[in-house]
């Protein structure tokens, strides 16, 4: 048993079909089971924002031209929630994660109506890692869960 596994206490695993309504139901299922159902309201909100943005991005981009499944695994580890998301859709453009840069808000007529997703993910998730292997996308990141890990 590795050091990581020693600290593993709770894990959840769901497979979500790549469409917006299935994502809504998948999130409801994830947040109804351990470890996400044990989070404080604040951390739960943070986790739901990140998970929703990650899954919606996969539906809208990786699976823009095809249907498929998204596999979500969440483990409560020593340093928070270890999240792993896998899909069989198209790779990230230029094989890297979008920057999620802040945008100008001073032009009322020209306010952005999109592009917030990666900005939110990068604001709230830690240790984001993306890799592509055998036609699959792998995204890993960590979410805070201080209230749970003493």
């Amino acid at each position, binding site marked *: 048993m590795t050091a990581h596994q020693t600290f593993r206490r709770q894990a959840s695993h769901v497979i979500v079909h790549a469409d*917006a*309504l299935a*994502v*809504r139901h998948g999130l409801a299922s994830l947040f109804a089971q351990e470890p996400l159902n044990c989070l404080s*309201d*604040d951390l739960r*909100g*943070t986790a*739901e*924002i990140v998970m*929703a*943005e990650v899954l*919606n991005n996969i*539906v*809208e981009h990786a699976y823009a031209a095809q249907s498929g499944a998204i596999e979500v695994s969440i483990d409560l580890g020593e340093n928070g929630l270890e999240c792993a998301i896998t899909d069989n859709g198209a790779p990230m453009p230029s094989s890297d994660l979008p920057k999620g840069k*802040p945008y100008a*808000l001073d032009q*009322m*007529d020209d*306010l*952005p*109506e*999109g*592009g*917030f*997703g990666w*900005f*939110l993910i990068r*604001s*709230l998730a830690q240790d984001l890692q993306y890799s592509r292997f055998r036609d699959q996308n792998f995204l890993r990141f960590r979410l805070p869960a201080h209230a749970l890990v003493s």
Partner: protein
Amino acid sequence: MKVVVQQLGDALVIRVDQDRIDAASAIQFKDQMRQLTQSGTPRVVLDLAQVAFIDSSGLGAIVAAMKGLGSTQKLELSGLTDTVKKVFRLTRMDTVFTIHSDLPVNLAKAG
């Protein structure tokens, strides 16, 4: 998307009667907002007190609703719950909208 519309004083109050505005409902919400505000009511208050969660598509739909208003119209927000507030704060959209913690008292009385 269920919304409840009420004229309170000088404001058209649109209450979203759903617990989320997300990618699955954003387009429908945007269309509803366009229909409800096209009469040209100068003051529109979007009551989000029932909405526990919003994603970036939902946020984009609210921004689109504001941008779709005529030059004499204004969109204000009311009753943001904690997670919704967090999305507005992180994206700095809280600096763009007039946000009331609750429906403005004069509106509630006028109803």
